[in-house]
């Protein structure tokens, strides 16, 4: 794939532009998650509003990229790996757009939480956010480099975020049982955690698409526990 060269350099450029566009959206969504989490931990609602506003750009980029992919499908009629690349790109941009929406969800929750007294210092949540950010970055990296190993790594990390979500859930449950005044806030924090977990799912989805793009093999619905030998 690295060595791929088309006779039409313009076609080549178009494919590269799609790749760049995807990374662009990816970077924006990653930043959105980061900022949303920052607004939560630093109790700064201004930047949360910015996240909500900036999501428009992600949405715009998403539709634009999809249109460009469809134009290539129509005009160039790609085959083999190019066809997989284009279809993968369409799916990945969908994932990224959803991730952007979830960052907005987190930002909205952050604004509400910031209006109420601090529930507790956030420890697991930022850790989870870091992991999720890393996952998006790695999934895009694997996309850039056609790196199957990195895609595999993303799939593995997804398990950890699931566990973290579970842990946060249990912790907040005890909070709520001890003091009913914390229920509202706890539920909101839980939703943040749930959103992060969903983002991790989407990152895994991207990694699956990368595997499909490189190998042509569908790994989307295979699940395996952490540490278990990966399916052949």
């Amino acid at each position, binding site marked *: 794939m690295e060595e791929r060269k088309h006779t039409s350099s313009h076609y080549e450029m178009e494919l*590269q532009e799609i790749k*760049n566009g995807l990374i662009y959206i990816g*970077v924006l969504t990653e930043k959105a998650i980061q900022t949303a989490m920052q607004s939560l931990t630093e109790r700064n609602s201004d930047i949360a509003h910015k996240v909500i506003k900036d999501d428009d750009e992600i949405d715009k980029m998403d539709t634009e990229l999809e249109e460009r992919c469809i134009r290539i499908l129509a005009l160039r009629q790609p085959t083999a790996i190019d066809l997989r690349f284009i279809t993968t790109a369409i799916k990945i941009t969908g994932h990224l757009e959803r991730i952007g929406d979830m960052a907005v969800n987190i930002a909205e929750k952050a604004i509400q939480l910031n209006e109420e007294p601090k529930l507790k210092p956030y420890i697991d949540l930022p850790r989870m956010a870091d992991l999720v950010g890393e996952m998006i*970055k790695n999934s895009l990296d694997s996309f850039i480099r056609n790196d199957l190993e990195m895609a595999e790594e993303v799939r593995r990390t997804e398990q950890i975020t699931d566990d973290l979500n579970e842990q946060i859930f249990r912790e907040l449950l005890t909070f709520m049982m001890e003091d009913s005044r914390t229920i509202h806030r706890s539920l909101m924090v839980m939703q943040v955690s749930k959103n992060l977990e969903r983002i991790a799912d989407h990152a895994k989805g991207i990694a699956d698409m990368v595997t499909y793009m490189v190998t042509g093999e569908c790994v989307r619905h295979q699940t395996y526990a952490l540490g278990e030998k990966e399916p052949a």
Partner: protein
Amino acid sequence: MKRNLFFKILFSYLVIVCLSFFILDLLIKDEIKKVMTDKIEAELLSYAELIDLSSAQKMSDQLKQIALISSARVTLVDAQGRVFADSEKDIAQLENHFSRPELQEARLKGKGKSIRFSQSIGVDMLYVAIPMKSESPITGYIRLARPLHDVQNVIEKIYQSIFLAMMIVAVIALFIALIFSYRLAAPIRALERFTERLRQGHPVGAIFLETSDETKMLADNINYLVDELQSQIRLANEEKSKLMTAFTSMTEGVLILNAEDKIEFVNQALSNMLADQYEDINGKTLMEAFLNADLQKSFLKFKATHSTILEEVTLGSVDPVIVSVSISSVHNYPGEEKVMVVFHDVTMVKKLEKIRVDFVANVTHEIRTPLTAIIGYLETINAGAINNIDDVKRFIDISLKQARRLNRLVEDLLVISKVELGEIKLHFEAVSIRDVFLGALPLFEAQAGLKKLNIQNNFQQNLPHILADRDRLTQILVNVLDNAIKFTPEDGSIFIDVGQKDNHVVLTITDTGIGIPKEEVQRLGERFYRVDRSRSRDLGGTGLGLSIVKHLMIAHDGRMEIESQLGRGTKVSLFFSMVKI
């Protein structure tokens, strides 16, 4: 090369030989034929004259004889063309000969000849005829006919000789061609070898040929070109190395994108700048390499406008580097436009800008706080409190305290600016750090006693003296110790360690105080920088203590290092230069 040349020369020689043969053939073949035929004709005529024409009987007798000696066919024809005697054929079978061209010619001119192809023997026949009587009326004709075998034979012989000569010439031509081609090719081959070496980039001097023809001129020209080329290459290399040196030694990061927008060159400064955050970025697009939306946005803007773009971009999320990015096109060949991106690290500039802004804000704040208090109390007194002597006394006490604080602040600031400007005169002398320290320690005994602090000092034996200004050294130690005592809670400990390390005397003051957050450590030493504003001001600091220490240490050609752990304590190390003995 040589073979080619050889064949070319040989071929041209052979063409010349063949051509000359052909022309020879054209020119001489007919001539020879004519001469030979004339000769035979004359001979036959003379035989014809021999025949006695007096009587028919005699003629018939002579016929055989003549035919024998002349080796020709002899025919006698009467005036009407009827054959009445023939040396070879039966006259009864012969037709009328009157229409034959030789007879007609003989009738008109006195003698006649004709060459005709004879079907029966397959060669040309020469027919000669004369009238039987030299005066008219003509009574008959004598005709002699002889095949032209001889002519053919002679011609064939001549041709054989010519062919032989041609073969010899051809063989000679072969040798000449060989020699010529060799002699011609030798200098050309030499030139070819020379240029081949040049093409492969081997060092070549000049080529000298022993010929004096065109090849010599060619060699001279090539020598000239090689000279020119090499000086051009040298010039280009020089330019290139100048540029490369500039690129590698400049502090700005530079990268160049090729026509496909992929990174094809990264200079050292940029690799260093990005070393922590990015892997090898060669061959990637800007987006792939930097994963930075702002940078990509600037790049797309440049792509759209093609005019130089100057933007500020923050690279990396951990330990971010703020760079001012300039994107411009490198004008190259049309259609293959390259783009140069220059990264100028402005992180430090930004930081300094922040320090400056903070400083102004801090100074005004620090000055305003005591002033507000003083003005407030004075106004209260002015408004009527002057009558209550107790209040007045209390207010004046407070005002005085604030005024002193203001004074201390201004003095500290003065010290700093003087040290910074180098206006302060330091009286360097060899000083025992131990003496100075023990001299300063009593100042804090009361304070330390109050907080029940445990102060331990551990001085290495036989420490060398250091070069310092005694008063300023005292100030340094007082400031550092003051901080240690101020920020250590009750029942804490302070350890003072003085030792020697490399070429320095190192004084370390370790406390079990509140510590400083990691990210704040590097900002200590900035004027008015406080970790926890409200708290340290309560403790009576001006926010300038460590800043003074830092600058005084620099003036002493030493340095200050601070390590700290939040909640555990802080370790301040002061490095002084030893006195060289």
